[in-house]
């Protein structure tokens, strides 16, 4: 079962459980990548079409949540949510603060991050740190079905909005054997030689890479950061205390990014690494549209592998053998498709 079906099933459970749950989307009958397919027909009184009014729609959801509804709003791309930052930050994040906890607004916002297939500079940004900097906003970046299930099942307990930044390419992930039990970062693959901390699609890349390195006798631990709001650093500290080597992969920009935050916190905690940590990300610009240029922009498995090899002093024949293996994996699919089965336009 893939991630989109898991989201749909979870949404169905919620809609069945209480009429307080409502779905809102521009194009409510367009299935939202299959993740809400059939739901408007089954729950016609809980599914609502939205006009192109992102800010008022988010405000409506927050206002409705503050008096008892549990709205779930979907936007096709994160960039559309930029039009609604005003409501998210001015009201969503502050209603509870400005009522001394008397008013809460548990609401759920699904913003999709595009990649490849011509998404270009206006359909591919994740912008997670913009949301992550705001007190009281819960900002999750689900990777596996269990991640989405956890945040969907629990958002009604939170006093402020939950934003799920759903990478279009993690819609295809399969259920993972390790599922989170909280919003804290968690180890998705145990290892002992080096730690990679990533979010969203970066976790998928790190997992693939760890698999390849494993066949060369190198053990990489992968941590799914999962949430950008307040979280417990235990899993991260435990991991780097064990491996002493760290690579952070930023989904968006490294400037003021997640990697910067994590490495600062490790330094503040007084943990000494055996080699300088690395931050990897796309360059400080925007994604081009043409598939020909994509590999210049996005971080490739090869790019991550080179950083791993540098930290672990791997060179010569072993390095070449690893890179050759990774190249095979990188070439399994064109750079603008998550998998061979993917069909456009979105």
């Amino acid at each position, binding site marked *: 079962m893939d991630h989109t079906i898991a989201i749909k099933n979870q949404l169905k459970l919620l809609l069945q459980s209480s*009429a*307080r749950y*409502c779905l809102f989307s521009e194009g409510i009958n367009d299935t939202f990548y299959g993740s809400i397919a059939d739901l408007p027909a089954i729950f016609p009184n809980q599914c*609502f079409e939205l*006009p192109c*009014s992102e*800010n*008022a*729609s*988010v*405000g*409506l*959801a*927050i*206002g*409705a*949540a*503050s*008096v*008892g*509804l549990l*709205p779930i709003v979907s936007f096709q791309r994160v960039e559309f949510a930029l039009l609604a930052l*005003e*409501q998210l930050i*001015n*009201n969503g994040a502050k*209603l509870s*603060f*400005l*009522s*001394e906890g*008397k*008013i809460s607004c548990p609401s759920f916002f699904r913003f999709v991050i595009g990649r490849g297939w011509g998404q270009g500079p206006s359909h591919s940004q994740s912008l997670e740190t913009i949301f992550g900097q705001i007190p009281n906003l819960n900002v999750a970046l689900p990777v596996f079905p269990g991640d989405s299930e956890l945040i969907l099942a629990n958002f009604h307990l939170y006093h402020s909005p939950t934003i799920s930044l759903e990478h279009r390419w993690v819609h295809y992930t399969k259920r993972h054997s390790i599922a989170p039990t909280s919003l804290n970062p968690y180890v998705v693959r145990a290892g002992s030689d080096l730690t990679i901390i990533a979010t969203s699609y970066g976790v998928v890349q790190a997992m693939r890479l760890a698999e390849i390195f494993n066949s060369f006798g190198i053990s990489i631990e992968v941590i799914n950061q999962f949430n950008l709001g307040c979280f417990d650093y235990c899993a991260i500290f435990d991991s780097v205390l064990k491996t002493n080597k760290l690579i952070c992969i930023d989904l968006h920009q490294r400037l003021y990014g997640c990697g910067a935050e994590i490495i600062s916190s490790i330094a503040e905690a007084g943990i000494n690494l055996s080699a300088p940590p690395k931050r990897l990300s796309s360059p400080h610009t925007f994604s081009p549209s043409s598939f020909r240029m994509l590999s210049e922009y996005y971080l490739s498995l090869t790019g991550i592998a080179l950083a791993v090899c540098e930290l672990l002093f791997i060179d010569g024949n072993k390095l070449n053998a690893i890179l050759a293996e990774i190249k095979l994996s990188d070439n399994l699919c064109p750079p603008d498709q998550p998998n061979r089965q993917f069909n456009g336009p979105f």
Partner: protein
Amino acid sequence: MVTSMSINKFENLFIEMGRIRGVEVALAHSYEHQMMRCPIHLSIGQEYWLPLIYCQYQQGDRFYSSHRSHGLYLALKGGLRELIAEIHGSSDGCLSGIGGSMHLKSIENGLICSVPIVGSSIALALGSAFASRHLGSQVLSVAYFGDGACEEGIFHESLNLAALYQLPILFICENNLYSCNTKLERRQPSVDMTRFAKAHCIDSFSITQDLPYQVIFDNFAKAYNAARTGPVFLQCISYRLYEHCGNREDLDNGDRLLQEYESMKDKDLLLSLMGAYPSVKSAYQFAYDQTMQLCKYYSSLNSESLLQVNS
């Protein structure tokens, strides 16, 4: 226009206007001591319609205000001490000093929140109305904002959504002709805010203090009650006699000319009501004295705290 000054069935409403004015004038007078340490947005000059709110209010109705919320807070019978304490940043304020003058709240009296970002609270009222309709409750949601908010995108988005979903919401647009110090004519091609309601197929009403008070009362009642079944837009044309933010009359800067100001001051309804009704005058004076006393108390607390900071 108040036609009969001797016996008037609206006398209690005029008394309430006097009370609101008394509080606000006292706030303005106390402000100069610099002990509130918080911006204030006064509604002096705009009170004529405020008492009508409580005539129509039903327990459970939810109001969402803009920054200029003292008047609405008082009209909904929010506590005076809690208001003064809040403006002075005191922990016994209506929001324990967290919100200050721009975030007044009195949930038990129906003022759910005030948001000082222009137009921002309109969408919350929209959501409240959506929830009412969805849950089948009879609660009316009221968005209170000014003519400046009509220049915001969220206002137009909200009118569209309210009309689309036929939500039980009353949009009260207080058109006081100025946004900060800038005249309406320099911001919009028309001074009539009801045109936006028409564009979104929403019924609209308009009141101004020049109308007989019976007409004002009836229009307000009609708008308020019609909004329980679908969106309604009510324009309250008024005139602010004080500056946008602060305790002075703002003739020094901006678009307001002395001639206009003086002619509006001559038309100040409260002055004529206080002249005609001793009850209004005494309500004004009582509220003024009470507010001055409270301000004095909270000022002295602040002044003690400041001494501690300085020492």
